[in-house]
């Protein structure tokens, strides 16, 4: 508790320093709408992807997801209308955003695209197996041992990666973020218990924890998403806790408390909006980590099983013919690589801008 009590003085001097340097709350407030917009865009995409893809869900639930998605999109447009454009971001960012956009578009529209058969091995009797990549065969990236089109599998695999990555990140973000915020704000026994749970979760090497949990659950998309959410939880909790402690010592929190705001209002209206940027930046990095974790599981054969194609189990399937047909491994490997690089790149950029 000691360091927490010391913090107000340090925070006060920091704010004074900023004010003295002419950098008042103005620019900090001007930066925030970008974070809010990014959060709404993320939410809109996430809800719409989930609504499109989780076809097993009942209709009302999908409708709710669609409405939530449209609402987020509306908020995004509303925020865009109020926003002044800063200088255009550099090439690296464009490439990263472009690739992620491509993956998201592929995942959303996979069912509509005119793709060769890539899901049902019974429908590919007439297609030659292990076709090499080429422009003239109609199979741009070739076919696998069952005659399934590699590009189609890749696009459907993007669905799994995104659902699992975004779903796991959202779970970790919401649960871990709230837990971290509450424990950072209240301290005391609440903090003790939360920190202990986080410590226990962090005791396991991540992939081992994942394997151990999957060993006892059937590895379908929902279970994997939940398990990945548990994996993402401690990181978010720690970040939220550390940043809440910093934010809680700022003057505007004290001001709000002096004005008689209730605890819930302070947490939701004062602290949470200031937490969102750093958590959002971190969630890109976590998303890439979770995508890799899911791919590793599938590669090891304990994740999502064939015939559902995922990037990981595509690589595992191409592994035995690695020498003769490296494209079967290289295509999904490159997809994973680009996705992870893009997400990490964006995450780092955002962390530099919004990290506390």
């Amino acid at each position: 508790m000691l360091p927490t009590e010391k913090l107000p003085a340090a925070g006060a001097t920091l704010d004074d320093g900023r004010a003295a340097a002419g950098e008042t709350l103005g620019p900090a407030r001007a930066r925030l709408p970008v974070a809010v917009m990014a959060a709404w865009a993320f939410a809109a995409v996430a809800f719409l992807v989930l609504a499109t893809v989780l076809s097993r869900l009942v209709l009302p639930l999908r409708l709710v997801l669609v409405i939530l998605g449209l609402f987020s999109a509306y908020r995004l447009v509303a925020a865009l209308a109020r926003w002044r454009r800063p200088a255009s971001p550099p090439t690296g960012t464009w490439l990263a955003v472009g690739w992620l956009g491509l993956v998201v578009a592929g995942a959303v529209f996979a069912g509509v695209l005119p793709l060769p058969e890539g899901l049902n091995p019974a429908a590919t009797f007439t297609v030659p197996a292990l076709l090499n990549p080429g422009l003239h065969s109609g199979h741009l990236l070739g076919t696998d041992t069952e005659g399934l089109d590699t590009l189609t599998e890749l696009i459907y695999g993007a669905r799994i990666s995104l659902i699992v990555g975004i779903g796991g990140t959202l779970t970790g973000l919401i649960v871990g973020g709230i837990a971290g915020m509450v424990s950072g704000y209240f301290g005391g026994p609440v903090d003790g218990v939360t920190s202990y749970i986080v410590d226990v979760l962090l005791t396991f090497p991540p992939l081992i924890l994942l394997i151990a949990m999957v060993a006892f659950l059937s590895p379908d998309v929902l279970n994997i998403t939940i398990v990945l959410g548990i994996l993402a939880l401690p990181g978010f909790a720690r970040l939220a806790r550390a940043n809440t402690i910093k934010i809680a010592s700022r003057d505007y929190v004290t001001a709000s408390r002096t004005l008689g705001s209730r605890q819930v209002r302070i947490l939701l209206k004062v602290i949470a909006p200031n937490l969102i940027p750093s958590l959002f930046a971190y969630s890109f990095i976590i998303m890439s980590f979770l995508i890799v974790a899911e791919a590793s599981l599938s590669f090891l054969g304990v994740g999502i099983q064939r015939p559902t194609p995922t990037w990981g189990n595509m690589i595992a399937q191409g592994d035995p013919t690695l020498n003769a047909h490296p494209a079967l491994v290289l295509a999904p490997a490159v997809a994973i690589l680009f996705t992870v690089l893009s997400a990490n790149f964006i995450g780092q950029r955002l962390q530099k801008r919004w990290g506390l």
Partner: protein
Amino acid sequence: MLRMLGLRIARAIAVLVAVSLGTFSLIALSPGDPAATILGTTATPAEVAYLDQQLGVNQPWPDRYWHWVTGAVQGNFGLSLVPPRQSVAQMLGQAVPVTAEIVVIALVLGLIFGIALGAWAAHRQDQAADRIITAGSFALISVPAFVLGLLLAILLVFHPTWVRVLVLAAGLVIAGRALSSASQRKPLLVRRPGRGALVLAAVATAIGVLGFLFIPAFPRFGWTPITTSLAGNLRFAFLPALTLTLGLIPLFAQVLRADMVQTLQQNFIVVARAKGMSELHIIFREALRPSLFSLVTVLGLSIGALLAGSVVVENIFGLPGLGSVLLNAITSKNYSVVQAGVLLIALVFLIVNLLVDIAYAYLDPRTRRAAN
């Protein structure tokens, strides 16, 4: 110091108890009748009875847990649930040396190259070498272990000629750069430019030529114990260890660079420079120790990543290590092995992080008194 250590150990034990409870309760949570899940539909009643007795299905769970924990403390993890029915401790005992070997090799190589590259990047802050190292490590960190392993397999197993040519070319390019920069009298890592550049050029050329002549084709699968043949053992261990270490080097380099850039701006470094110490002396004798904090933390955490990475790598290269045993146990639902393996890994991870805490006290005397 002792008090801090005691607290840490008590905390570690508390975490370990939670971990053992967690792995234990996972079995209780697994859906369906365990014996039926493990043995399938073709089991004889005798097999089911044996398994039920092994699992202690008929006892209340605190008894079962106590029985298991008391056994585990004595190194007795029971018998494998799936034939062949050998002792779990023996199965793990055979697998641990394999994993330990590749992890230790990867760690040592990672530290050597990571510290060298990180220190060099910090020394050449914001110059070309720094930018190349920083960007390269960012890219390499993003490569998942199983992708890296398969890429290495494509190169070093199936196309060793490409690698030989690449190594030769890289050696010659570095030598050429060193010589050309020496002729322009730019300072290199070693203070006297002429001789250092010559040495660097000679070493780079030598490594390139030796690599071109002697890089062998590595085996795709398999393992030779170190007691049978050292050369054969290293040939099998090389690719898995390389895969793991290529994940570590960029991590260590990034972390060390960040700390060392700050250390190099401090007054005692300026004093050392003013005294006319060589750059090598300043970086490795003066600046290294105070820059090691984050590296030591990351080192402790990376043991976890290494143990997880070894599961992947052992799968790719067919090594009979801890990861393979664990994975086989999971696919055959051999829960007693999963339990013991997970507990063992958590134990190793906890011990390493305890050592990290002790290392802090060694690196910075101030933390010795900051017990809590």
